[in-house]
């Protein structure tokens, strides 16, 4: 595995680190970001869920053959994550596309249903009741594993507070309506300007929830290299800076698809970030993420090289 290649650039002043002029990672630029695929998946919504998931599995298995670049990346990633090889590695690679197709199908169908109807498809692991005791603002930390969007919606319902979901400025505006639907107390906040963090500060001061993805580097000085499956990978430090500054907890949340096709929501112990300990907290988060991915390697839905994100 080649080492990461984060280019450094000159400082703006002798004492102040560069604010970040590196090229942004292009992790969103994969062949699945096509409006036609979202439309096709949504059109399957009239089927019963078992039938829809059966069809999604079949399409997912076939789809892997049509995306050779992503397939090769997934295979290399799984090789590092699982140590598998040969036929076992091929099977795991195919399973990523299968599981992604099922979660993707749910993303544009059941995720759009009223939250009361979602209960039929979701169970909660012990520990999620911790959320009830958190009265201050909080930061929900998720990643692109399982049905992460559903995790955010369920957390918004359970927290009974407005939830601001921070998302990257999507390259293809025409798919936004499929994946970013305000409502049910959820509001999407696009990371279009550096001042976006001010709105998050204000929301946390009001006792609201901020949901962020903790697995995608931004290509700025806010990235920190942390070992992930034994190799350094860039992760965003921003959520940890925000939590430390506002003295609010970070609540890791995962929503994984089980063998019975029900989702299981897990919320490990919240992380509190002491002054100067942002990087330690980030490492704790990455360890939690690694543990989750180790148990569900076929639900790691980042179709790029996490250790060397592609850049513009």
């Amino acid at each position, binding site marked *: 595995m080649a080492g990461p290649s984060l280019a450094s650039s000159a400082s*703006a*002043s*002798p*004492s*102040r*680190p560069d*604010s*970040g002029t590196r090229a942004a990672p292009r992790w969103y630029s994969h062949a699945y970001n096509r409006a036609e695929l979202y439309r096709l998946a949504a059109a399957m919504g009239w089927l019963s869920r078992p039938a829809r998931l059966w069809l999604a599995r079949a399409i997912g298995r076939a789809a892997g053959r049509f995306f050779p670049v992503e397939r090769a990346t997934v295979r290399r990633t799984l090789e590092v994550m699982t140590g598998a090889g040969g036929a076992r590695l091929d099977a795991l690679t195919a399973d990523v596309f299968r599981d992604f197709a099922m979660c993707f199908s749910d993303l544009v169908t059941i995720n759009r249903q009223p939250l009361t109807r979602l209960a039929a498809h979701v169970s909660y692991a012990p520990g999620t009741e911790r959320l009830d005791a958190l009265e201050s603002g909080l930061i929900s930390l998720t990643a692109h594993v399982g049905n992460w969007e559903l995790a955010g919606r369920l957390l918004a319902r359970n927290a009974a507070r407005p939830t601001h979901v921070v998302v990257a400025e999507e390259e293809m505006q025409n798919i936004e309506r499929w994946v970013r639907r305000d409502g049910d107390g959820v509001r999407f906040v696009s*990371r279009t*300007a*550096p*001042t*976006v*963090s*001010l*709105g998050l*500060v*204000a929301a946390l*001061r*009001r006792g609201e929830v901020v949901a962020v993805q903790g697995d995608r580097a931004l290509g*700025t*000085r*806010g990235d920190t290299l942390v070992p992930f499956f034994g190799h350094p990978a860039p992760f965003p*430090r*921003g959520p940890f*800076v*925000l939590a430390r*500054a*506002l003295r609010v907890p970070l609540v890791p949340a995962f929503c994984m698809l089980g063998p019975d096709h029900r989702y299981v929501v897990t919320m490990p112990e919240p992380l509190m970030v002491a002054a100067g300990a942002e990087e330690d907290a980030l490492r704790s988060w990455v360890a939690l993420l690694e543990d989750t991915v180790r148990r569900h390697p076929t639900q790691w839905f980042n179709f790029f090289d996490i250790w060397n994100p592609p850049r513009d």
Partner: protein
Amino acid sequence: METDEILDAIKALLVERLKFDPARAAEITPDTLLPQGLEGSLGLDSLDFIELAMGIEERCGITIDEQEDLAPHFESAGALADFVTARQERA
């Protein structure tokens, strides 16, 4: 606090919390733009704005909890000083 005093407080925060060169901070005027991406700005990124907001809360005794879009108030040093002044008068 008067607007000029708040502007001085902003300069001090830039040095103390954001590690700006004091000589560079001293050159800041009300027209100096703050956010990264604007030509001639100080180039503050999202992490800087968190630190700046926290510093202003502590130093100026206000709480930043507005529902409204805060970006226009943090576009320049002068706009920020005016915002803080207005908040202090309202408190």
